[in-house]
């Protein structure tokens, strides 16, 4: 399976951490921003309040004329600091201060307010925001004191701009780092997965590579390699045991056959003895055949034959098998049909695949009544090449189907029939060797066995 770097757990992790980190950075910068703005605004407000207090004191000391004097004095000396003053009578007409006229349509609610002044700086119009406080004097005059806050606004804008860049870069950095991390991890995982697939496919000599960094991947690879070592050892042991058991059995069987045949060929042997010898040889054949089938199952299960897989056209194969079995079917008054369609090439072992099809056909031949039908078919769907053997015989009850694939399990209907009980187990082993799906279905009536192979090169 191909792993996309965008769909790994590392990518999800990076995305999650990136989001959390970006949120954190955002929260931090946001808090700093608001606190800083608060400090700056408080600072301005404190200056305005102090000014207003001083001027109110002057009013109480010297009345309106004293306040107007104080305003003109401060207006001159403070004009460079951006301080703004205005004294208006109850009709909002200017009586003193450095502001041209009352900046509002009427009287704003509350003490604190904001407005802006248009000014000319080097011939260009500039809008200056002003924060101000208005105080109502006892004779219904109003005193406005304000500060030009353009520097604070500029600072705030720069701060916001920097903050957004900071958050954006954090997110971008997280995404890029996450992508590369994920790509690196997915490559290593991909190579682990490919090697494991090869091992599962029967190549027990493959091992995961380690880069010597002793990181967690090396640790994982080491653990998997140890497991495969053990598996290979066990498989080897099993194979060796099987081979030597088979060899040990074959030796005596071989000599037994030699002895019987030798005795049968002697001219002095009487006819009844000769008949006995022939019967013994027939039994010997059966033992031999069971042993051979067991060996084939063991070999297919070990997967070692997979190394010798070649391209096999299943359509051609079933045509051959069908032709081989057709006369035998006809002799039993059965109809055997072959429907081979399309390109049905798979990678496999032709002899074992032929054996599997033959076992299925022989099974059908054994159980269906005269007049029945056997169909061998291949077809190609979008993903798999299907090989099917169908009959309209008694079939296998759904509960018995899994058991029918086990070695030496013989179903009730098979008790009276000749056979080792290994035929379907061998089919199952051959299917596993070819990574083929094996399905047993109800053909209504009868049995429908389907083998689904990955299409070959």
């Amino acid at each position, binding site marked *: 399976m191909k792993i996309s770097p965008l769909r790994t757990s590392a990518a999800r992790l990076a995305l999650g951490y990136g989001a959390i980190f970006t949120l954190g950075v955002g929260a931090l910068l946001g808090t700093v921003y608001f606190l800083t703005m608060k400090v700056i605004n408080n600072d301005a407000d404190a200056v305005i309040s102090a000014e207003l207090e001083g001027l109110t004191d002057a009013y109480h000391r010297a009345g309106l004329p004293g306040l107007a004097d104080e305003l003109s004095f401060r207006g001159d000396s403070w004009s460079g600091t951006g301080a703004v003053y205005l004294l208006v009578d109850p009709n909002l007409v200017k009586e003193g201060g450095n502001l041209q006229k009352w900046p509002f349509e009427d009287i704003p609610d509350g003490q604190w307010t904001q407005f802006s002044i248009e000014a000319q700086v080097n011939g260009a119009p500039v809008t200056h925001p002003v924060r101000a406080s208005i105080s109502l004097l006892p004779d219904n005059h109003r005193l406005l004191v304000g500060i030009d806050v353009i520097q604070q606004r500029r600072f705030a804008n720069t701060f916001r701009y920097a903050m957004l860049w900071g958050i954006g870069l954090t997110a971008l950095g997280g995404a890029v780092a996450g992508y590369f991390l994920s790509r690196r991890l997915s490559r290593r995982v991909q190579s682990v997965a490919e090697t494991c697939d090869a091992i599962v496919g029967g190549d027990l000599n493959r091992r995961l590579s380690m880069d010597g960094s002793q990181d967690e991947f090396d640790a994982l690879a080491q653990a998997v390699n140890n497991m495969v070592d053990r598996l290979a050892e066990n498989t080897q042991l099993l194979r060796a045991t099987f081979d030597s058991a088979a060899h040990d059995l074959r030796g005596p069987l071989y000599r037994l056959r030699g002895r019987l045949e030798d005795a049968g060929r002697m001219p002095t042997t009487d006819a009844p003895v000769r008949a006995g010898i022939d019967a013994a040889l027939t039994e010997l054949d059966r033992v031999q055949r069971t042993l051979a089938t067991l060996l084939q199952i063991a070999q297919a299960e070990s997967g070692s*034959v997979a190394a010798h897989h070649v391209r096999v056209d299943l359509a051609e194969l079933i045509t051959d098998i069908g032709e081989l079995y057709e006369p035998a079917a006809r002799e039993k008054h059965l109809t055997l049909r072959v429907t081979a369609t399309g390109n049905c090439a798979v990678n496999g072992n032709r002899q074992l695949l032929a054996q599997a099809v033959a076992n299925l056909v022989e099974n059908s031949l054994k159980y269906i009544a005269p007049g029945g039908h056997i169909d061998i078919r291949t077809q190609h769907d979008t993903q798999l090449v299907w090989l099917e053997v169908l009959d309209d015989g008694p079939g296998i009850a759904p509960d018995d189907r899994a058991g029918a694939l086990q070695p030496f399990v013989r179903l009730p209907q098979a008790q009276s029939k000749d056979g080792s009980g290994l035929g379907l187990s061998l089919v199952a082993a051959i299917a596993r060797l070819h990574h083929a799906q094996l399905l047993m279905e109800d053909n209504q009536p009868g049995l429908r066995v389907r083998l689904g192979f990955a299409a070959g090169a």
Partner: protein
Amino acid sequence: MKLLLIEDDLEAARFLHKGLKESGYEVALASDGRDGLRQAQEQTFDLLITDRMLPHLDGLAVVRALREQGVRTPVLVLSALGTVDDRVLGLKAGGDDYLTKPFAFSELLARVEALLRRSAAEKNVPQTRLRVADLEMDLLGRSVTRATKDIQLTAREFKLLEFLMRHADQVVTRTMLLEGVWDLQFDPQTNLIDVHMSRLRQAVDKGFARPLIHTVRGAGYVIRDEDKSA
């Protein structure tokens, strides 16, 4: 005809030796790979029969060594493993035929005869017509006639008859037919080959006084002109 049998199972070797001698062959025995290779290098044999698993030097190594030295003697490899890729490896190593133990002696004998005949036939030019008595097969025209009558055969029946006629006067076993005609090495449980043979007989022998295809009990089939051999 002189054969060399390399087999470490002494009792089995004794039966094979006896059986082959009774069938008219002169047989030399070797009980391990090294001895077998030495004998095969020192003398000329018509055929080698070697076990696959042998002490000192295994059977396939013996065959490879001989082939490297240019010895073309046909070799029949016997194996107790009897699995599909073992067979492939055996033939790749330079063996000419492969037989899985335990086998019927008649199977071994049939294969020995086929190998000996094949190595003799290889010296001749390729044939385009095969003939047994009045039965004639045209390999180029893909037609078969007996006396003056055309015989219609399916493609597979043609191949089956061709295999028999190429081995005329020799016993061919059912396994040899399955291998030679269908390229299948498995062991069918039903009498498939017998059914095919009876259909071929219908086509070839029916209506003629003298049958040409004969069943050899316990062994297989042979196509033979009985009058000629009598």
